[in-house]
């Protein structure tokens, strides 16, 4: 039957349509695929498909020696490499009951917090792009580039550092490290302020993000959200404060909390976290002690005692956990990672239901997933 003006009925029964989004969609932040059931412009249901970037990292870890596994952890959350390395080396150190020198702990914290800033800057850039703002991404990438240049001068690589070692660091930082970090921090603070001015309270940006995908505190806890996504819903939970690890208990910093739990809160909370991370780095630079950072164990073949250990830490995306099971050989028996962005992704269905198609991009963007970590 051909469609004519007679057989088009107004107020007809709603017809659900299946709409595929990804894995090549530029706003899915990698290779993530969503199958959306839509009724007109409204999303009825969503089925996420993951695994396009699956490399079997956890299985690969079982075939590598303990110091080689660090390279695999670099490649899980490839935006926050230092944070990932940190939680793994802490897991092995806890298993071996190893003491780490204060200087290496301070340098680790400095680099982790700088990595958090870089990661959040990338988030601000992509959040702007998802909402249609091109310019802030340029500002943020400029700031991120400065931090990555610093990382290159410290570890020799811009992203896949392989710099943390079990029991210390690969080598000491360059002589002008402190001065370099202070210089970079000043510039990064300016960059963040600029993009903050440009984007945060822009009327169009507010209209796109305010009251979108509101998560109540109960829902956020039930879905197992962690990190900025949880704190945006008003839950004061940060692993750095709740269970201080490394030397985080020696710094004075605040944990920003959101009020509404909408997409704009998730965005603005990360902007605030950049300022807090800058505070931590400044304090750590002031307190940075002298001493040895390298450990002779790094060159030896490690054989931790048989046993199991679970260690968690605060990544830019949330709480990362590493479960490590050792059978006493030179290779881990099993490594299980609790990746923050994979767990945060579980709330996607709740967030996307009954929202508009046009909002799906900003909702996914505000979750800030990294597919290397989701698929592992």
């Amino acid at each position, binding site marked *: 039957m051909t469609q004519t003006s007679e057989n088009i009925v107004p107020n007809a029964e709603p017809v659900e349509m299946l709409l595929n989004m990804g894995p090549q969609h530029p706003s899915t932040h990698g290779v993530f695929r969503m199958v959306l059931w839509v009724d007109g412009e409204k999303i009825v249901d969503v089925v996420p498909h993951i695994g396009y970037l699956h490399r079997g990292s956890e299985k690969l870890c079982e075939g*590598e*020696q303990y*110091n*080689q596994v660090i*390279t*695999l952890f670099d490649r899980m959350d490839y935006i926050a490499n230092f944070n990932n390395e940190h939680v793994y080396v802490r897991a092995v150190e806890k298993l071996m009951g190893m003491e780490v020198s204060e200087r290496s702990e301070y340098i680790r914290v400095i680099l982790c917090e700088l990595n958090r800033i870089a990661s959040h800057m990338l988030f601000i850039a992509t959040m702007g792009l998802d909402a249609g703002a091109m*310019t802030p991404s340029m*500002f943020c990438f*400029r700031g991120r*580039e400065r931090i990555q*240049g610093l990382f*290159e*001068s*410290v*570890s*020799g*690589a811009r992203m*896949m550092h*392989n710099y943390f070692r079990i029991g210390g660091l*690969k080598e000491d930082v*360059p002589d002008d490290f402190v001065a370099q970090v202070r210089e970079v921090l000043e510039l990064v603070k300016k960059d963040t302020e*600029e993009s903050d*001015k*440009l*984007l945060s*309270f*822009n*009327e*169009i940006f507010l209209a796109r993000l305010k009251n979108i995908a509101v998560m109540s505190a109960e829902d956020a806890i039930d879905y197992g959200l962690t990190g900025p996504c949880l704190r945006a819903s008003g839950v004061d939970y940060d692993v750095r404060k709740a269970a201080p690890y490394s030397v985080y208990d020696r710094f004075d910093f605040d944990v920003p909390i959101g009020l509404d739990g909408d997409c704009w809160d998730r965005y603005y909370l990360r902007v605030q976290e950049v300022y807090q991370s800058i505070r931590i780095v400044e304090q750590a630079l002031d307190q940075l002690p*002298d001493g040895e950072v390298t450990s002779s164990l*790094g*060159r030896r073949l490690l054989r931790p005692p048989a046993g199991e250990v679970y260690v968690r830490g605060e990544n830019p995306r949330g709480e990362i956990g590493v479960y490590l099971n050792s059978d006493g050989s030179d290779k881990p028996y099993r490594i299980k990672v609790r990746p923050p962005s994979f767990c945060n992704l579980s709330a996607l269905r709740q967030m996307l239901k009954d929202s508009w198609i046009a909002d799906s991009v900003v909702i996914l963007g505000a979750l800030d997933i990294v597919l290397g970590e989701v698929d592992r």
Partner: protein
Amino acid sequence: MFNSLKGLVVTLVSTMNGLRAPVTRQYPDSGNLLGKRDEPTPVKDRFMGFPALTWDDEVGEPFCTSCMVCIRGCPTQCMTSVMKDNPLHEQEKSSRRKIVDSFEINLNRCILCGICVEVCNFDAIVMSHEHEMSTSNRNGDRLDLPALLEIGFKFQKDTDWIPPTKRVKVPKGGAAEESKTPAEAESP
């Protein structure tokens, strides 16, 4: 409305600054839009490019004895090597009893982690500053011993490379102190 105008001001200021001193560079040339210079991409001192083998100028042979420590330490198994008896040792010109016969690195597999350099006991392998190495050959990224030594020699020359085991350690706030390493005594 006010916030949008504030954003426009930020963009305008940044544009004026960008005209004076651009942040980006024109790859592969350096310089800005007005003046282009032919320079290699700047890298930091510690930059880890592709691995290469070093050349011992004093004896005239590679440092590498093909002991396979780097091959066992490599997370991706990207290297192979073969050992042979050192002819210079029989003539008592070299202290190395064994020497590398052939060495191959598959750069497509290499992940630039630097573990090979860290575990090497003979200062034989370095992370060079080479990184723009794309080829159009099918196996163009498999480097053999002469190619590796060539890259390594270029790196040694460019950076005035001193073998890590011969470097003097400078403790903070103190005078230079000779580092105590076993390789100090056995170096040729």
